[in-house]
């Protein structure tokens, strides 16, 4: 199930990586083929008009971040107790966001690390930082530019689950990825 998602994602990402916006086409004369052949109407000899949509690429890239069918809409990485490394099951998620950042060089993300409530608030802030730093490090290894990622920590201050048991704590040991416009 997960691997299908990844394949789909890869396809979508590949499509998205050739958007006109990315190509920085020169203004003026466009060296472009007409639209799809089937689009021409019969009997009327009209010169074809090829549409160049500079907004399309951005729109689709941005909407993928929130499209529930896109892995890019998945933003949370969860951790075991006292653990800081990205677990195997979250690697595809980090890789997808890394690919998005590579394909959209102007895009930036904020990685917010979180910790469960037990113990010192400031120490927990540092534990959250260790988690978000881990996500950032992995993204840099995947070719993301340093200035595209900021890793910060919310410590235990913004719990996703309010309870005081392991069920809640496991939800709160987490890194969240926020894209430009979301922070």
């Amino acid at each position: 199930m997960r691997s299908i998602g990844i394949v789909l994602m890869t396809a979508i990402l590949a499509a998205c990586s050739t958007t006109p916006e990315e190509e920085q086409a020169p203004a003026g004369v466009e060296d472009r083929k007409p639209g799809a052949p089937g689009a021409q109407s019969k009997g009327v000899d009209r010169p074809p008009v090829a549409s160049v949509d500079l907004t399309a690429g951005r729109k689709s890239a941005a909407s993928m971040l929130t499209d529930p069918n896109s892995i890019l809409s998945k933003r949370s990485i969860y951790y075991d107790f006292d653990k800081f490394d990205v677990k195997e099951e979250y690697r595809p998620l980090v890789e997808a966001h890394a690919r998005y950042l590579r394909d959209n060089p102007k895009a930036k993300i904020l990685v917010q690390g979180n910790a469960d409530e037990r113990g010192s608030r400031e120490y927990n802030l540092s534990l959250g930082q260790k988690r978000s730093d881990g996500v950032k490090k992995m993204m840099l290894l995947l070719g993301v530019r340093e200035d595209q990622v900021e890793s910060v920590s919310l410590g235990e201050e913004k719990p996703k689950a309010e309870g005081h048991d392991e069920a809640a704590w496991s939800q709160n040991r987490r890194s969240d990825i926020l894209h430009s416009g979301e922070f």
Partner: protein
Amino acid sequence: MRRVVFALALAVSACQAFAQLSIEITGAGAQRMPIAILPFAGEAALPAAISTIVRADLERSGLFRPLEIPALNPQPTEASEVSYAEWRSRLADALVLGSVAARPDGRFEVRFRLFDVAKQAPLGGVAYTMARDQARATAHRISDYVYEKLTGEKGVFSTRIAYVVKRGNRYELQIADADGAGAETALASFEPIISPAWSPDGRRLAYVSFENKKPVVYVHSLADGRRHVAANFKGSNSAPAWSPDGSKLAVVLSREGGSQVFQVNPDGSGLRRLASSSAIDTEPVYSPDGQYIYFTSDRGGSPQIYRMPAGGGDAQRITFEGSYNVSPRVSPDGKRLAFVTRNGGRFQAALLDLETRQVQVLSDSDRDESPSFAPNGRMILLATVNGGRGVLAAVSSDGRVKQRLSTTAGDVREPSWGPFTK
């Protein structure tokens, strides 16, 4: 200047808080001095009876046992002849007499005298001129005077505490008298506020606010509500601590990776890294003589307390017992270290004698955080949980005297006891 103006929108200066802290005494000292504090003649004209506040202050210290004295006629004042034999028969060791008089200019004159009944000697007295709304502050001054004369150490009744109240999704940084009364909100926000730290002169607070979706260190002037950024570098900025002379802040930054201790001027200039480790270093705090910085580090595999020279250099491990020792605070005399230790699943405030290396657990609760010494070193204020609600607790350094400060309107946390007021 611009940033100050925008910041003012967030800062709610001198806004009277909805929720006052109520205080409850849950433990007292073994030996308490019996003291008679008589009603001050004329104090009914004031919004708060001075003698009542003095009595409550001294009782709360855990070192005094105020006596119940029936109404006397005529009511003695500081000018009265004192019959030591009479007060001896009432089992008082000390006696406070006073009076309040309205002045023609609308202000009041408050006078009191303190007597040592056992030694049959007057110990002194003071006259204050005050406005009507300064009755509480004047009473705390009198308590400080009495406390110092009878115990030999300075009282902390006139000091203030800072703490954070969380109510729903609202966070308020509040300032109150040491008895929890007169709470005012210095900052209200929809994002968390943690780690308030008083400047040595008591005029400013440094703290961490999450209003920009990440932790940023601010310095906030209490009198006018002006605040400015002291540390907002890439990554997280947290754990501010003032140097004893107020000229520097130690902060923890992740700008160069990990959580590491830096030093910065309170205006945000002069950044300097103090130490380099591949581990978490956080919660720095200066020793009172300014020589050392104590901090929490997990460089040895578990979080423990270390210290290094304040200008940076080799660190020395301070705590050894247990696998989780955090949040160091040095006592004002530099001889003891309050911190939080984990015993099993319980997080408890503890005190380490830096000379004898003896550790004493101070509390029997299990979610203690953020210890903070009173400026005379006698009490330690901390955050804990009682009945599922965040409350503040104060405990004496011998563990006997205990108080609880709570509000029914929310969770109280992140206490910090302010310095002596000049």
